[in-house]
């Protein structure tokens, strides 16, 4: 165990902070502090490209694919400084955190050449086509069909909850390629270009009025026969590999964003006097402890390079942060009192906190619900008997 950072790491931190702050004070000042995923999407695509052009997009990737080969500590530092500087979330989150690492792990050389530099350069924005109306928690029951026709896949079906599909260039799709197959067998992991007649995207409005996610319809949508990761019929394994990246380094950046949110709540509590209320003080203290726990947990998880064993910490991370943030949202509302009801007006001092509350309602749902996470912890982590699982 080595805590703290070396001198050269601290130098790297200063370099990151200088560069990020300069961008947020200069050319990209207009996107600083945005907390929603959809606001100023076009400018944020330009930001992706700007990051790429300066080599700050995917610093953990090997140099040959547009990264810097940064160490884990450096990635942590960059993620921290990114959030500290008030830079908005990455609109190509799915490309950099999920598609890219999956291609690095399982893609062919040709595919890496084809996609990785463009993802790193912010030119290829990816979205995730896993969930369907009938396949949410039960992802293995997907019904979207893919069949080979000559040298092309032809896809029919529907995905749902596809975050940012409306601003994406590519979508990866888990589709049933083996007629009559059930459950995790017979699935193939395809990568498809979105701008084609066979794909239609319709926005779904979410509770805060924003439309971050979409329905994605496939009606004779096409992609080349080799636009798949892994083998035909091996899509489930690829999908699971991809999901394992959801708990990667990005979680550390996320924690820095959480830090900003908690600080906002503390500032509100001080300003409106609730900071003198013992109940609120204790909840703030608990939120602080929770944040530290997550930080140490994530650092330990990331330091562990042996992925052959089931990692108990990795299994618990999703439910931990999701529940923490859901509670944080409620704390924000309790601190604000009736002011928590007032949203949407930028002049209103704490306007971002009710929005944080609304956003945090989804944390315990996406990326595996709390119930599914508990099942995984109990079944995979503790070896307890399995839940009934339909015909899958």
């Amino acid at each position: 165990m080595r805590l703290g950072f070396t001198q050269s790491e601290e130098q790297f931190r200063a370099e990151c902070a200088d560069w990020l702050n300069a961008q947020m004070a200069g050319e990209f000042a207009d996107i600083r502090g945005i907390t929603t995923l959809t606001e100023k999407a076009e400018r944020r695509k330009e930001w992706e490209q700007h990051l790429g052009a300066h080599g700050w997009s995917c610093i953990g990737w090997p140099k040959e694919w547009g990264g810097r080969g940064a160490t884990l500590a450096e990635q942590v530092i960059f993620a921290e400084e990114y959030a500290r500087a008030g830079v908005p979330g990455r609109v190509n989150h799915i490309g950099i955190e999920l598609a890219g690492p999956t291609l690095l792990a399982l893609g062919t050389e040709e595919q890496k050449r084809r996609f990785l530099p463009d993802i790193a350069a912010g030119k290829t924005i990816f979205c995730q086509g896993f969930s369907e109306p009938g396949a949410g928690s039960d992802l293995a029951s997907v019904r979207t069909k893919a069949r080979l026709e000559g040298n092309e896949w032809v896809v029919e079906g529907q995905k749902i909850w596809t975050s940012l599909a409306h601003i994406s260039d590519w979508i990866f799709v888990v589709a049933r390629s083996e007629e009559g197959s059930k459950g995790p067998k017979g699935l193939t992991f395809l990568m498809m270009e979105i701008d084609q007649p066979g794909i239609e995207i319709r926005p779904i409005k979410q509770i805060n009025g924003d439309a971050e996610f979409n329905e994605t319809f496939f009606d004779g949508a096409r992609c080349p026969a080799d636009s798949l990761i892994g083998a035909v019929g091996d899509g489930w394994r690829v999908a699971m590999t991809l999901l394992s990246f959801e708990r990667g380094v990005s979680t550390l950046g996320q924690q820095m964003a959480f830090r900003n949110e908690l600080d906002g709540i503390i500032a509100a509590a001080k300003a409106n006097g609730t900071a003198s209320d013992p109940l609120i003080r204790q909840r703030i203290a608990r939120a602080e402890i929770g944040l530290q726990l997550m930080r140490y947990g994530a650092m330990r998880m990331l330091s562990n390079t042996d992925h052959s064993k089931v990692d108990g910490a990795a299994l618990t991370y999703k439910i931990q942060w999701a529940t923490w943030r859901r509670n944080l949202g409620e704390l924000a509302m309790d601190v604000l009192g009736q002011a928590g009801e007032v949203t949407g007006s930028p002049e209103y001092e704490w306007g971002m906190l009710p929005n944080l509350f609304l956003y945090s309602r989804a944390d315990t749902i996406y990326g595996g619900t709390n119930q599914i996470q508990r099942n995984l912890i109990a079944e995979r982590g503790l070896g307890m008997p399995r839940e009934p699982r339909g015909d899958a």
Partner: protein
Amino acid sequence: MDMLIAPERLELAEAVRDFLSGTHGPEVLRRLDAGPNRDPALWQGLVEMGLTGLLVPEEHGGLGMGLLDAALIARECGRVALAEPLVESAFVAVPWLVAQGDTSDLATIARGERRIAPAHRLNGAVADGEGAALDSIDPLRRLTTLPADASDDALLLDLGALMAAAQLVGLAEAMLDQAVEYSKIRTQFGQPVGGFQAIKHKLADVAVALEFARPVLWRAAQALDDGIASAAVHVSHAKVAATDAAYLAAESAIQVHGAMGYTYEVDLHFWMKRAWALGGAWGSRAFHLNRIDAAVIGGPHPIGPENTFA
């Protein structure tokens, strides 16, 4: 001692429930959300039921009923996420005016021609007031800035908190119903998700929270009506228990709905947002818990076995 509510008092509330479930379904909420939020025809329906005059003394043209009756009906208003400002005008402002001996507006309020938006300084804003509009988390609440002459009267606060608690109970009941129904029709892994114990226990916990909130609410309404010295503590207890139940109901209902519950297209959000708004109105949980602990620990609230059920 009798903790049951007399059946004849429940009859009116049941009639109101029937009326509202027939005239104020989710399609009405969607229509109001798409349009101007308020509908004179809906208001007129409430007037014709006599609800605007429920607490107005008979000599001023009302029904002269009590706070328990009003709380029972406020709960029904919560159940349908009623948008019209009936509760605050007729069940909060009216008894406050009556207590102050200010009877000048009562007849017009009873006839539905006048609505009062009670403004209390503890609230940062007023619902359906005259000031500048503010955006509420609840698309059907018309929130406005607090007027300079807002009151800081203790009775007004208690009335507001009591009626918010009553609506919160109704909101929680409605969210629980919606979650139970959804859990029966949504299948995953080849079975209704309501068949998973994780989901059953979640919703059972909401039922428990509600079961404990309801008697506290009725107790508070009766205490305030009787004007007993400890009424404010009972009201605080009701506001805390009802807010707990409603927040838990919202959290559980959205969870059971999965991503569907996070959309604007599923009606659940109307109920959740009203609950989140009313949870902070008329004193947050922190405010009311402080009132309870101040009364119980070294305060005037009598404790000890002989007082447990007082």
